[in-house]
């Protein structure tokens, strides 16, 4: 066999008895070739054979068609690749290669252009945010500290500034949306990092004689307490809103023995009524008529529906209220701090005063009765029955151009408002020693500080507790604890004029005043709605013949 194989060879296309071109279907017998004999080819692994001219034309046709060019050099039956030989000099291969490389690099350049556009757009946003962040920090901590910690020259900035500063506008805006996750965040980039930030400017190095003070509290503590205070304030405001807005509806005075019950019911209603208040407020700001109509229609279609659980309602109070009522995060903090020196927090409404503390401590216990009472309430008091639905409706159409502008603009104006309010407080402090004690201003470092410090001591009651003894050691238990809390506060920060403190307090005041005005607006608008009636007009200009009058002789046509 192997001897035979040595003499045998593998057959080629020219050894076929009959050749059939798979393209033109021409047959050719081996013993009667046409003249001139055409060239035959067997280009692949299967049995297909073809005239070379037919196959070359087929390949050319395929290569011209973009959709099929990829398979141009493949056998349509077995998929084997055709191999082309012949005229293919080096220069043609080089030119082909260059051409392919150029088109490939063309794609890369296109991709790079797209990337550049995206990146420069992103960089533009980044630098705008950073610039705003620097502005906001300057407004909050005051120009003096800003000069020491950041300076207006960005090349001096510490690395974390490039993270924190651009985050400031974003977190400010996010804090006004109803995302619970974000509501606590604005202080984190705005205030938290700077006390521990090493000063970058050395021109205003502090004289060692000035010592860190216990008051105002360290910014870290402020940041940590902020969410708690914010929540408390939001709840408090919800109750106040509830009480004031609801009080325009005449309701039976609670009996003495039932007073506690009724009171609890009213407290429990907080969530729902806050929703109502928001819806109402929304109507004032935005599409007033539309909203009213929506509300009425919803009331008509929907019987008292199953109510959301109290927990979401409470979240509404914190979240949606935060967004709609322009809840500025520093506000609660500041408001609470303002109150703190005056003793325990006092709810502003007498009718709620006694229940306040108890309610706050047992929110869970109210949940069960809450639902039932709320439904009862809805059936009993028609005007309020649909308010939850209205609140839902208000929330769904909240993002309009105007409301978006209010949201963003209000958020970005916060630092400036806080600066203005802070300087207002500073001015007040010249007149009222109590305010001076609270905001604890210090003289600018650049000159004559000692005298003013002394003045504070003399004017009495300023809690100028010394954190460090002569050797720089904490003295006393309280001082030690507080110095622990303020460990991350640099000397620079601790000894400078606490502009940030009075600014935050001022912003809190601003928020309290603003919320007060809003509640007033709410109440007035509601009262107007309740008491409006339509003016009666005579039939002047109407053809009297068309009217069915009691005594026609008594009237004149006009």
């Amino acid at each position, binding site marked *: 066999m192997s001897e035979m194989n040595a003499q045998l060879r593998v057959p080629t296309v020219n050894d076929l008895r009959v050749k059939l071109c798979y*393209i*033109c*279907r021409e047959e050719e017998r081996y013993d009667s070739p046409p003249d001139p004999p055409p060239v035959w080819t067997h280009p692949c692994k299967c049995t297909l054979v073809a005239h070379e001219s037919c196959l070359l*034309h087929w390949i050319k*046709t395929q290569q011209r068609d973009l959709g099929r060019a990829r398979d141009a050099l493949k056998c*349509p039956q077995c998929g084997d690749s055709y191999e082309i030989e012949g005229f293919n000099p080096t220069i043609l291969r080089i030119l082909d290669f260059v051409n392919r490389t150029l088109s490939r690099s063309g794609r890369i350049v296109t991709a790079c252009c797209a990337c550049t556009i995206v990146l420069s757009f992103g960089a533009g946003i980044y630098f705008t945010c950073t610039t705003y962040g620097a502005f906001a920090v300057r407004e909050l901590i005051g120009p003096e500290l800003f000069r020491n910690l950041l300076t207006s020259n960005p090349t001096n900035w510490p690395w974390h500034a490039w993270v924190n500063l651009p985050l400031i506008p974003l977190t400010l805006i996010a804090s006004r949306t109803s995302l619970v996750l974000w509501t606590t965040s604005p202080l984190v980039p705005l205030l938290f990092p700077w006390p521990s930030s090493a000063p970058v400017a050395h021109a205003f190095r502090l004289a060692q004689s000035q010592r860190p003070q216990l008051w105002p509290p360290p910014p870290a503590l402020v940041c940590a307490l902020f969410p708690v205070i914010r929540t408390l304030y939001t709840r408090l405001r919800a109750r106040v809103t509830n009480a004031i807005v609801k009080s325009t509806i005449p309701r039976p005075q609670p009996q003495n023995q039932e007073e506690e019950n009724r009171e609890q019911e009213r407290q429990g209603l907080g969530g729902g009524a806050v929703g109502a208040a928001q819806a109402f407020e929304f109507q004032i700001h935005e599409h007033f008529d539309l909203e009213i109509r929506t509300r009425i229609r919803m009331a008509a279609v929907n019987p008292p529906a199953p109510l959301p659980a109290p927990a979401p309602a409470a979240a509404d109070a914190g979240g949606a209220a935060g967004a709609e009522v322009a809840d500025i995060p520093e506000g609660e903090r500041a408001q609470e701090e303002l109150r703190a020196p005056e003793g325990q927090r006092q709810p502003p409404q007498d009718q709620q005063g006694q229940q306040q503390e108890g309610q706050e401590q047992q929110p869970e216990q109210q949940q069960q009765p809450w639902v039932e009472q709320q439904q009862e309430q809805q059936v009993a008091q028609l005007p309020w029955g649909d308010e939850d639905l209205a609140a839902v409706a208000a929330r769904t159409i909240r993002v309009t151009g105007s409301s978006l502008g209010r949201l963003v603009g209000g958020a970005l104006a916060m630092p400036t408002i806080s600066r203005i309010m802070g300087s207002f407080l500073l001015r007040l402090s010249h007149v009222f020693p109590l305010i001076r004690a609270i905001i604890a201003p210090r003289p600018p470092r650049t000159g004559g500080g000692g005298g003013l410090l002394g003045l504070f001591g003399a004017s009495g009651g300023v809690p100028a507790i010394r954190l460090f003894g002569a050797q720089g050691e904490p003295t006393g238990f309280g001082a030690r604890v507080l110095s622990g809390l303020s460990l991350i506060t640099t000397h620079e920060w601790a000894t400078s004029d606490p502009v940030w403190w009075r600014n935050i307090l001022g912003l809190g005041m601003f928020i309290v005043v603003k919320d007060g005005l809003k509640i007033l607006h709410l109440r007035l608008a509601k009262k107007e709605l309740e008491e409006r009636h339509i003016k009666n007009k005579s039939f002047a200009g109407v053809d009297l013949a068309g009217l069915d009058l009691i005594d026609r002789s008594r009237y004149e046509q006009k």
Partner: protein
Amino acid sequence: MSVVYSRRLKKELQEIQIEQADPAKRAAGIQLLQAEDLKTWYFSIEVLGESLYKNEVFHLMVRFDPEYPFKSPAVQFVVSDKVKPPVHPHVYTNGHICASILGDDWSPTLSVMAICITIQSMLASCKKKELPEGNDDYVRTAPDNPKKTRFVYHGDSV
């Protein structure tokens, strides 16, 4: 290459006519109706046996251009008073057929008869009589020659 075109079509036509004359060879349900020239041929197609198109007869029009067999012929169902195209997810109401072998998957190994058989089996395997998606839009804007349409082939390849 018009030599190839006429040579091949004449050969195909000759083979078809031989098949048609011989009941043993001819493909059941496919009949050459008319082939007066090398430009347009007509076939009748019906699906024999059990199928959704039982007892329905369709007419197929096959048009060639001089690029044949390097380019596929233009194949469509005839729409007239007497014959209607089949209701099929790949057949538009103007008779145009969305089949990959009439477009990108065409190759000279195929033939007119192969196309007819493929279309016949496309009908035979149909599970549900329904019009193609977007039929109305396509019919409103479709060119006269289905080869000018760039179909996007999807689903079962036919």
